[in-house]
């Protein structure tokens, strides 16, 4: 079985990227975006994935069922900028087979 899923990412310049993400490497969405360098180093995943900086905020555009938002993520988004109803922190979304076809857009840097 192919452990990779396809994700569509619109970067901060508006360019759409269709990328393959492994489901067997314990990666999260922020890390996948970084591994493809879709946002400059130092502008995404600043806190390393602790839900403590919101630099990996993204807008979820497809209707995939996502892991429920934890308290840390919820409170971080309460203080982040450019937040929409479909905002999530990429670092809190683990790459699983269920997310195949996920579409997201990176929120502006702040």
């Amino acid at each position, binding site marked *: 079985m192919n452990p990779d899923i396809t994700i569509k990412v619109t970067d901060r310049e508006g360019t759409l990227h269709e990328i393959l993400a492994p489901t067997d490497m314990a990666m999260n969405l922020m890390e996948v975006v970084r591994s493809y360098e879709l946002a*400059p*180093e*130092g*502008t995404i995943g*600043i*806190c390393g994935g*602790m839900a*403590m*900086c919101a*630099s990996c905020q993204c807008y979820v555009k497809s209707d995939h069922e996502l892991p429920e938002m934890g308290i840390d993520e919820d*409170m*971080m988004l*309460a*203080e982040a*900028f*450019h*937040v929409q109803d479909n905002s999530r922190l990429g670092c809190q979304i683990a790459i699983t087979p269920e997310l195949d076809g996920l579409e997201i857009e990176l929120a502006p840097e*702040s």
Partner: protein
Amino acid sequence: MITTDILIIGAGPTGLFTVFEAGLLKLRCHLIDALPQPGGQCSEIYPKKPIYDIPAYPEILAGDLTGKLMEQIKQFEPGFTLGERAETIEKQEDETFIVTTNKGTKHQAKVVAIAGGLGSFEPRKPPIPNIVNFEDKGVEYMIREPEMYRNKKVVISGGGDSALDWSIFLTDIAAEVTLIHRRNEFRGALDSVEKVQELKDAGKIKMITPAEVKGIIGKDKVEGVSVVQNGGEEFTIETDHFIPLFGLSPKLGPIANWGLEIEKNAIKVDNALDYQTNIPGIYAIGDVNTYPGKLKLILCGFHEATLMCQSAFQRIFPDKKYVMKYTTVGGVDGFDGTRKEAPKAVVKKID
């Protein structure tokens, strides 16, 4: 003018450990950091979070790591310029460098080690279109002199510890304190939240939640802010000051203009040798540097700091002979006169 052997920019774990390795070589260090306390990200972002990959510490809290490093370097008497950001660097004719901070403090050193992590922590500015026009005209992103708010009307926005703590603090000084947050819930220490509740019930803090400041009103200075509460109509609150407290985020900042080779928001260094930058005498260590295979790990920063100090020593004392000595063999001689050494073996005859 502060003079030292190695001027370290950034007082995170890598910068702090540099003091130890330099001290073994009898080199003195001074550190500059934009944050008011040492520890860098470990103190500012995640002091209560555990780290599992510090050798010999199966688990250590980031804040405790900072404490242990401070203890380890104490005898080498590092100097600190805290709460100031390194702004400019000038190479002198005698090959030394002068680094000046945003507050004008000057430092002179033979070697500069940039251990700046992801950069200096700057307040996060809310995306309010006209906010920059009011900076220092009633908009402050951090509170430096609480006295300036005496008998003034103040609006604070944010939902974390600093928003809560300053709201509490300013009730005794300001004429009126309003706290605005996008949620009804706050992320802060429990007693801060309870204290704000108390002050709110006593009518000393006005709370507007869930709400957001959308605009700033005023001619030459802040006269009010426009607020939207719970998706309703925009309304105005009269105020003399607007203090958005949304935490800090690191920016490479002025270092980017020092003529150093930059790649991917990091400083390129020679990893085959000594982590020197393209400017001889300026080194970059820890998360701030980049080279093929770079990993942004504290333990890698420690290693880089150690090699960097050897190179710095050779630069400062080109003619001195030196070989690396184990601390177990040589002990640790502090600049404060203390000495740590392995206990001598006991030799005693058994009759």
